[in-house]
């Protein structure tokens, strides 16, 4: 039980005196006696002491009494003092005596007046309302101490309401001045009065209540007799907002017998109502019952009811007990025994009194109270209390609250209320480590060893050491003490042995390493790497499929081994063996049972930790959890992990500046700040994501893919280990890709494709597809892994290097070419064609190389096939096409590579010579090597350009070749380097002269030749008739030229005349504006302003144009504007 209040005896009167009423202010205690005497005490707060036992009579009160008697006025009033209250703002002390209400000065205690109309008064109540200079809204649970000080008070309104018979007499003070009074007739005699708002009073009858709106004199019943509370909605007329003012209403409901009681809870604007049937909460804000609230359960109807922040206080009917309750949780927190209590003054300084004794209820600090509740494992109460009180009372309130909620969540977890537990953890953004600690290593990934580290015990415990030396025989975490349980586990293990023997003989080192890992003192993760690597390497090495399978099972087995060896013996059965026999690809269903066993093993230790931390919290052991419960626990963990993942991501963006503080606040509804997850967000994110992965693997393997493909912070080694264990290879590849660990990904893919044990990964397709996703920065990796697929099938090379993707296009072309060249000429050719024709690469190197590759192709194929075979002809055509179409290659280079005498390259050579401007040599090929005068002519037509010196003479060159063939040509032994023979001008009998072709040429293209030069070449004995066509075309051509020139001369002359006319016309139109020229309208200089020119050449300002037009009449109609 909580000790929220400690009763401190402050006054004890002699047996003759009888207390009838008490009233306390901040430092004074007024005590009214049955004799009509008044005693005033000064209360010394500094001496607050806590004597928990009020029944032990305060023997030495006089010495150390916190109350000092200031004065006793024996004949204060004639009758007995029935009720005593003060109005601090009005400085009035109000006394009910002899059926009347009397007023006294609060300071001097001088009698002021008797309120005559209050005859028959039975009870009264007061309220005061303060209006502040700066209106502000008070948060609902502002502590009284934090409220604005008196200095800020602008105006105070104090009210007194006296119930006398069926009337309410209301008095109102402003400041110290009584400003008015009114009477309100009510249907019944009120027995208790409680202000629920400054101007609204709740009247309690025997069981019913009604509310009186004082300014409106309106009475509304809210409670019908005999009906349960909450069944009737009290309808109160519109309740005015209460901003800028606060109220403090008078004390506890009076103790009139059989009376409906009420107490106002100012913190949340509600009223708790208690009558002999039930209790209820009523909202003074909305004027209706609060349906969301339950009833407070009282053992018997209280005789008095009051409120003291933040508790509801009540006195039992017999007056022997004061009960303290939290109105939020309805829980009875404390009950204090007294000799019969008769009086009760609630509020900030609560006092209780019997007929002779008065106790101050000294409040213990909230921090102490909270500690106490925690100590008593009343976490819910502690949370409720801490949520209920203000920051000022509890240092570090929010972090304490968070801590409490986390502990609460832990307890919920231990009670298998996983969903609630995880929701609570999420609510407070609990640190991931703390939540995961509740789960076994399979989820948290935290080996016991790292927990030992956290506790600062770096030295291995004896168990740990033995575990290490035991090697493969050691089982599970070191924390398992060598008890009978352990031996039992070992026995079980022995039974299981037959199943394991094979595996362990196969790879004893692996098994022992991993065991040692689990127990070693250093962080385990680093140890995982070599283990797994060793595993996969051996996986790659082995060729025997059977052995592969066994290895797989080992990995799997290692995961399950703790189950086999450690879970409480009854749970171990053959299902593990079944699990081992199943495929490594995680089959959750068949897994779930063995998994549950495994998980429950882990639990026993973590739960133990939880238990020790939570003290003697109620705890149902993990053994009672079946597999289903554990699966549920894991499923519920997702609630927390997903929440944490999102929050951490958000905080990370905030930290990195991706989002602004403003954005953050705008989208964050939770009270979340940077500190929630500690400073190392990256680390927390890693813990969360890795745990998420582990959860998915167990309960929803299909989500592993999405997780590893998204940006995530999963721990690389954990992912590798887990995914390998479950054969989730493509997910692992995706993970590597996401993390840019391409080397790892490719190594894995290669192992898989080599091992041929997972049919899906056979062959190089996966590697190729992966390589396609890589760009230039990973070129070396691409080359490393592309070689093999390309060797298998060149098409893979096409897919990798020639795909129509930004990645493929980003690759360094030179290097790709160099890579491909030694592998395959055909592929290189394809690649070069791709970049030259497909990507329009203009670098001469590639064009050269492509040409040379074609050349090579022709050469090699020519040795295998006849020269008119497609295999030869195709590359020949390709080469020709490239040489013709491209202008980027270097002809010399290619020419040099061409075999001298192969007939296959003649045309190509011609193109090359042409490119070099060596038309003669090109033509020589057509004329002599190919003997194709048609092609020769076409060539000339293509090249001929009368404006280019070298090309102008091309027809002449051809003619010359026809008529003066070099000597060698005649024998068809023409070579590229053959020197041209000297022209033998006198000897016209040239061997191989082709007169026919020459005449043909002359007749068709004669005009492109100088007639004189041509004639000179012709043999002298030629018949003129055969030249007829030549001359004719020459003449026609010349005439055409003459005519054309004449026409253009005439046209140009006409143009000249036209232009001159235009000039004259334009000149006649000008006006000259000099510095001195004035506007005839305003007589100011025209300067550079906008002007108007009239047809009569008058120039005025643009602004003056209208005036000018009017003055000069219709003469000036058109206005031209100009600058």
């Amino acid at each position: 039980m909580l000790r929220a209040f400690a009763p401190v005896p402050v006054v004890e009167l002699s047996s003759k005196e009888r207390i009838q009423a008490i009233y306390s202010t901040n430092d004074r205690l007024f005590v009214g006696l049955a004799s009509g005497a008044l005693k005033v005490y000064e209360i010394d707060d500094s001496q607050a002491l806590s004597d928990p036992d009020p029944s032990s009579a305060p023997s030495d009160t006089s010495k150390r009494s916190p109350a000092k008697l200031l004065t006793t006025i024996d004949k204060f009033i004639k009758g007995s003092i029935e009720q005593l209250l003060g109005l601090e703002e009005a400085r009035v002390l109000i006394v009910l005596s002899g059926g009347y209400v009397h007023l006294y000065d609060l300071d001097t205690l001088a009698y002021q007046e008797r309120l005559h109309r209050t005859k028959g008064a039975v009870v009264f109540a007061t309220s005061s309302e303060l209006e502040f200079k700066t209106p502000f809204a008070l948060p609902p649970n502002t502590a009284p101490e934090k409220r604005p000080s008196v200095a800020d008070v602008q105006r105070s309104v104090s009210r007194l309401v006296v119930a006398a018979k069926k009337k309410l007499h209301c008095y109102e003070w402003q400041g110290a001045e009584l400003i008015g009074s009114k009477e309100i007739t009510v249907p019944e005699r009120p027995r208790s009065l409680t202000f629920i708002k400054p101007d609204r009073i709740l009247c309690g009858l025997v069981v019913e209540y009604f509310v009186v709106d004082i300014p409106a004199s309106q009475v509304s019943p809210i409670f019908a007799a005999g009906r349960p509370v909450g069944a009737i909605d009290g309808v109160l007329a519109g309740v005015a907002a209460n901003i800028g003012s606060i109220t403090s209403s008078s004390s506890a409901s009076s103790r009139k017998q059989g009376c409906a009681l009420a107490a106002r809870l100012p913190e949340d604007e509600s009223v708790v109502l208690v009558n002999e049937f039930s209790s209820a909460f009523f909202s003074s804000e909305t004027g209706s019952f609060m349906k969301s609230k339950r009833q407070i359960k009282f053992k018997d109807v209280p005789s008095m009811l009051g409120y003291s922040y933040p508790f509801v206080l009540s006195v039992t009917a017999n007056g022997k007990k004061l009960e303290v309750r939290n109105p939020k949780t309805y829980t009875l927190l404390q009950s204090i025994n007294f000799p019969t209590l008769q009086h009760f003054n609630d509020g900030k300084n609560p006092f209780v009194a019997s007929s002779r004794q008065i106790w101050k209820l000294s409040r213990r600090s909230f921090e102490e109270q909270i500690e106490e509740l925690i100590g008593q494992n009343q976490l819910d109460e502690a949370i409720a209390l801490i949520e209920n009180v203000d920051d000022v009372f509890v240092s570090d309130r929010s972090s304490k609250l968070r801590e409490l909620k986390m502990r609460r969540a832990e307890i919920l977890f231990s009670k298998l209320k996983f969903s609630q537990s995880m929701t609570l953890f999420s609510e407070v953004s609990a640190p991931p480590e703390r939540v995961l600690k509740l789960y076994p290593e399979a989820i948290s990934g935290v080996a016991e060893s790292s927990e030992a580290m956290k506790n600062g015990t770096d030295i291995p415990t004896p168990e740990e050491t033995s575990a290490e030396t035991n090697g493969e025989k050691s089982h599970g975490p070191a924390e398992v003490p060598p008890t009978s349980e352990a031996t039992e586990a070992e026995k079980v293990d022995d039974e299981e042995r037959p199943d394991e023997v094979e595996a362990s003989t196969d790879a004893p080192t692996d098994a022992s390493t991993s065991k040692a890992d689990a127990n070693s003192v250093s962080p385990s993760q680093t140890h995982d790497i070599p283990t797994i690597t060793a595993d996969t390497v051996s996986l790659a090495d082995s060729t025997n499929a059977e052995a592969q399978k066994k290895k797989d099972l080992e990995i799997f087995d290692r995961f399950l081994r703790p189950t086999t060896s450690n879970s409480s013996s009854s749970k171990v059965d053959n299902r593990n063996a079944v699990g081992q026999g199943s495929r490594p690809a995680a089959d959750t269903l068949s897994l779930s049972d063995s998994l549950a066993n495994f998980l429950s093993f882990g639990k026993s230790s973590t739960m133990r930790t939880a238990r020790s931390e939570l003290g003697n919290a109620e705890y149902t052991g993990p053994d009672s959890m079946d597999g289903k419960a554990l699966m549920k626990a894991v499923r519920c963990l997702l609630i927390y992990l997903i929440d944490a993942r999102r929050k951490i991501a958000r905080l990370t963006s905030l930290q990195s500046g991706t989002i602004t503080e403003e954005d953050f606040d705008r989208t964050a509804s939770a009270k979340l700040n940077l500190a929630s997850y500690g400073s190392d967000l990256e680390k927390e994110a890693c813990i969360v994501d890795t745990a998420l992965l582990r959860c998915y693997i167990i309960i929803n393997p299909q989500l592993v893919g999405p997780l590893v493909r998204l940006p995530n912070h999963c721990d690389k080694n954990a992912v590798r280990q887990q995914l390998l264990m479950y054969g989730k290879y493509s997910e692992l590849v995706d993970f590597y890709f996401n993390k840019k660990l391409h080397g790892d990904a490719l190594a894995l893919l290669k192992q898989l494709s080599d091992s041929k044990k997972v049919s899906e990964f056979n062959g190089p397709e996966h590697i190729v597809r992966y390589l396609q996703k890589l760009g230039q920065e990973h070129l070396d990796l691409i080359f490393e892994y592309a070689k093999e697929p390309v060797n298998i099938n060149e098409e893979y090379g096409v897919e990798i290097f020639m795909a129509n993707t930004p990645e493929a296009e980003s690759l360094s072309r030179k290097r790709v070419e160099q890579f491909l060249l030694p592998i395959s000429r055909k592929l290189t050719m394809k690649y070069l064609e791709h970049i030259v024709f497909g990507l329009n690469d203009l670098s001469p190197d590639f064009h050269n190389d492509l040409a040379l590759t074609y050349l090579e192709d022709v050469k090699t194929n020519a040795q295998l096939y006849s020269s008119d075979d497609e295999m030869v002809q195709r590359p020949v055509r390709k080469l020709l096409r490239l040489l013709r179409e491209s202008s980027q290659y270097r002809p010399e280079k290619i020419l040099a590579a061409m075999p001298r005498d192969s007939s296959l390259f003649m045309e190509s050579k011609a193109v090359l010579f042409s490119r070099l401007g060596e038309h003669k040599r090109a033509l020589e090929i057509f004329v002599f090597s190919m003997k194709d005068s048609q092609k020769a002519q076409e060539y000339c037509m293509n090249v001929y350009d009368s404006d280019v010196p070298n090309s102008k003479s091309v027809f002449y060159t051809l003619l010359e070749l026809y008529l003066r063939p070099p000597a060698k040509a005649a024998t068809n032994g023409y070579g590229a380097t053959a020197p041209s023979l000297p022209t033998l001008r006198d000897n016209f009998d040239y061997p191989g002269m082709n007169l026919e072709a020459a005449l043909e040429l002359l007749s068709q293209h004669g005009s492109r030749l100088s007639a004189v030069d041509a004639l000179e070449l012709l043999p002298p004995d030629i018949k003129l008739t055969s030249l007829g066509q030549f001359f004719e075309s020459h003449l026609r051509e010349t005439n055409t030229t003459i005519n054309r020139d004449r026409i253009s001369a005439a046209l140009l002359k006409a143009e000249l005349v036209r232009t001159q006319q235009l000039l004259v016309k334009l000149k006649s139109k000008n006006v000259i504006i000099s510095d001195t020229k004035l506007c005839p309208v305003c007589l100011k200089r025209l300067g550079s302003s906008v002007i108007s020119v009239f047809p009569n050449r008058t120039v005025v300002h643009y602004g003056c144009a209208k005036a000018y037009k009017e003055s000069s009449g219709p003469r000036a109609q058109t206005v031209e504007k100009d600058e």
Partner: protein
Amino acid sequence: MSSRKKTMLKVIILGDSGVGKTSLMQQYVSKKFSNQYKATIGADFLTKQDVRVDDRNVTMQLWDTAGQERFQSLGVAFYRGADCCVLVYDVNNAKSFEALDSWRDEFLIQASPRDPESFPFVVLGNKIDVEESKRAVSQKRALAFCQAKGNIPYFETSAKEAINVDQAFEVIARNALAQEESEEYSSDFSDPINIHLDNDRGGCC
């Protein structure tokens, strides 16, 4: 199942910023369209009452989300308990199409549905009213994506011209209902967050 219980279908709409998520919802729920762009902040839902799916009358709770990273909600985990997820991209913006995969993955993680394989998604290619020359993602490409992801229904829509919007949401409602019904059999995992939402009406975060 208890048939006359009122059925509330929860639908989450995801996609890059500016693809027209809010516009599609507005068009569907209130037949309105605005050319103005106002980024969605956090997440918000609209309710469409009395949607007929075959012979059933259902209410759709459509959750519009922020496409912009900086406005994405931190608040309640509203993805939880979703019955259908709508992935939207802009047919004139290839990046928005390429992002669909991530949106889908993100949804799966956040919602963690029991059976991710069968969880209903619907893909909408929006803004098809824009001139053809601006189009960046062909129908063929979109269909190939949907096929690869397990035959996701695909619609080409325009929130502006109200093309295909009702048709798309009809399929969304139908698939959501099927999902909801299949979940009713298998839910042994009470969902406190979802319950919380119901009290938290109008709940933007």
